[in-house]
């Protein structure tokens, strides 16, 4: 009956034409436009057609992928994979070993540099991902409010940040409650939130230090300690609000937060929704006062991978090369306002025109030489979740000292990664 028809009609899964390659892109309108341009360009010149499908963003995209792997319907090429996830997929043996492709390593070295090459090499010595784009995390600041308290830019050190907090965070309408704060981060205990506060600050403080090395936690160090102490002070002294960002309207645009830690996606968002006369700028995130050297930050990297169900990985690589060519990278920047993970963006002649006409992107371009993604660890999400638990207890609710939090996190991560010998 109807039931049976249902089952049969749904069981029919589209047969892929033999010569076609499937490419999954993100669902974001600008990236779809970007993809369409290059897919069309390729299809007019080649016999192996690329068919592209946008899939939902964010956490959902991981679940789509999961379902695809189980159902054996993975795409040939998947763009937009968070760098932290690659190791898990690599260890499961579903990704192509890209370093075995002729010319791959040199191409990447040329485009991205040695450091990035090292960063994306898996623990087994092979490379399973193509670094594609980044969204460096920086401070955005409300120019008018910061000038009012005597700052030309967002505070650059912990000390000055706290001083700014003292000046700005106050109760302006005398109802007994503070109603403006120097900044805020999400207090919801979700693992990926830490990438944009704790982890970014940790990278800045430690000049690109690692969380996990050789399957062992290495974050229990003085840099993490300084970061946690700084963040804890911000909440203790009520310079940051203990409130969920979901409630009410955007407080940065309303002038209630003077700064925020965010990425280049913020530029067009703020331009679109800001009230009249609102002036804003970007600066690197703060570092400890004793810090030396350039300020690093979190790259929020999304990369491209090829699944080993792909019958023509070499052709797939040829197509991907067009996306990360000079033309590709320029189009990426101009269409999506996300940065390609290419070295020397500022010096290159390629982007000079764009930067001139879009000056707000310049801080991010400058920052792009000092970014780091994630370490290679299969259980990175859970590691961050453990850190987030301790972060919440220490920073937001003042139930532990930073040292206690780090010790507890280290212990939990050791248990997680199976390093029983390290537990005393």
């Amino acid at each position, binding site marked *: 009956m109807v039931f049976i028809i249902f089952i049969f009609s749904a069981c029919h899964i589209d047969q892929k034409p033999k010569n076609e390659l499937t490419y999954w892109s993100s669902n974001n309108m600008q990236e779809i436009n970007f993809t369409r341009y290059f897919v069309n360009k390729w299809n007019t010149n080649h016999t192996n057609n690329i068919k592209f499908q946008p899939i939902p963003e964010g956490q959902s995209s991981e679940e789509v992928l999961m379902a695809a792997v189980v159902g054996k319907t993975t795409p040939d090429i998947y763009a937009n994979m968070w760098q932290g996830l690659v190791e898990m997929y690599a260890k499961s043996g579903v990704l192509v070993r890209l370093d075995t492709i002729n010319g791959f390593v040199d191409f990447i070295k040329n485009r991205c540099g040695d450091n990035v090459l090292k960063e994306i090499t898996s623990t087994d010595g092979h490379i399973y991902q193509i670094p594609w784009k980044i969204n460096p995390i920086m401070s955005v600041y409300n120019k008018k409010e910061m000038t009012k308290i005597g700052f030309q830019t967002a505070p650059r050190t912990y000390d000055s940040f706290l001083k700014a907090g003292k000046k700005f965070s106050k109760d302006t309408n005398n109802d007994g409650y503070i109603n403006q704060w120097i900044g805020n981060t999400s207090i919801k205990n979700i693992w990926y939130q830490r990438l944009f506060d704790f982890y970014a600050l940790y990278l800045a403080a430690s000049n690109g230090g690692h969380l996990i090395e050789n399957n062992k936690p290495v974050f229990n160090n003085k840099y993490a300690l300084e970061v946690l102490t700084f963040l804890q002070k911000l909440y203790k002294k009520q310079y940051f*609000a203990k409130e969920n960002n979901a409630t009410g309207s955007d407080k940065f645009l309303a002038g209630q937060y003077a700064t925020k830690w965010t990425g280049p996606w913020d530029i067009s968002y703020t331009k679109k929704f800001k009230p009249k006369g609102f002036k804003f700028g970007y600066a690197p995130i703060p570092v400890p006062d004793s810090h030396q050297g350039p300020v690093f930050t979190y790259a929020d990297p999304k990369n491209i991978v090829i699944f080993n169900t792909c019958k023509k990985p070499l052709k797939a690589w040829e197509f991907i090369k067009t996306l990360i060519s000079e033309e590709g990278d320029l189009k990426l920047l101009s269409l999506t306002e996300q940065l390609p993970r290419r070295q020397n963006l500022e010096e290159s002649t390629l982007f000079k025109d764009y930067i001139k006409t879009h000056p707000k992107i310049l801080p991010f371009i400058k920052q792009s030489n000092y970014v780091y993604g994630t370490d290679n660890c299969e259980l990175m999400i859970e590691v961050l979740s453990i850190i987030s638990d301790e972060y919440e207890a220490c920073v937001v609710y003042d139930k532990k000292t930073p040292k206690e939090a780090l010790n507890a996190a280290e212990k939990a991560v050791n248990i997680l990664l199976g390093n029983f010998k390290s537990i005393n």
Partner: protein
Amino acid sequence: MAKRKFKIGSYLLVSPYVLFFLIFVAFPVFFSFYLTFHKWNVISPMKYSGLYNYEKMLHDHLFYKSLVNTLYFLLIHIPSQLIFSLGIAVILNTKIKFSSFFRAAFFLPVIVSGVVVTIMWQQLYGFNSGLINRLLTDIGLAKIGWLTTENMAMPSIAIMATWKNVGLYIVLFLVGLQTIPKYYYEVADLEGATDWQKFKYITLPAINPTIFMVVIFSTIGGFSLFIEPYVMTGGGPLNSSLSSVLYIYKQAFDFYHMGYAATLGFTFAILIMLVVVLQKRFLEKKY
């Protein structure tokens, strides 16, 4: 001849159910049980792990915490719901004008999606700009950190859950109350009984089955608490609003620990059934 035809016809009639049961009940239960002895992150093949998941669960403080949280939620939610719905039902059962308007008003939250209620209450509970706190400060009281204080998060969610469901139980109690013959109360009045005595000796016993049903429904519903903490608190602060289902969801869909999630699910399910059986024994009075 006719009798045999009869029987085949019956089997045909129930065949959809049997098929459905096998695919969506029997198979999952067995597969779930099978999964508890394996480690599986979906993209790699399953790895046999014996009793590893069970051991992990016994040492997992979040497992116990989510259980305690859920029980804490039920302990607040069920009595408050019972008292409130029974109380209002009793009031509405007397000669009240516009009773159907009131009944409809209370029923309104029941029919809308849990998502609507959750998003709505997120705006009510906000610390600085939430409506409830604004009301409190307007009348001179202090603001409360509904969702940002460790011991307040679960009660806040319980209040919201009660608000959402109470209309249904008011209706159920009203139906039950209306079956009590009026002359019982008239006789009691003649004997000089107080309101409270009337309630205790006439009303309560008569609606005992309804009370029992409300408790069971609320319990089973309470154990499946998910969307509210998922949207409002993410399980915080400090995992105080981490319900059992939310924890299973996190293990399965954040960390890809399918085997462990199945272990948690199975264990919680058995515990729920235990609780329901216990409630049946102690609360249901047989006639």
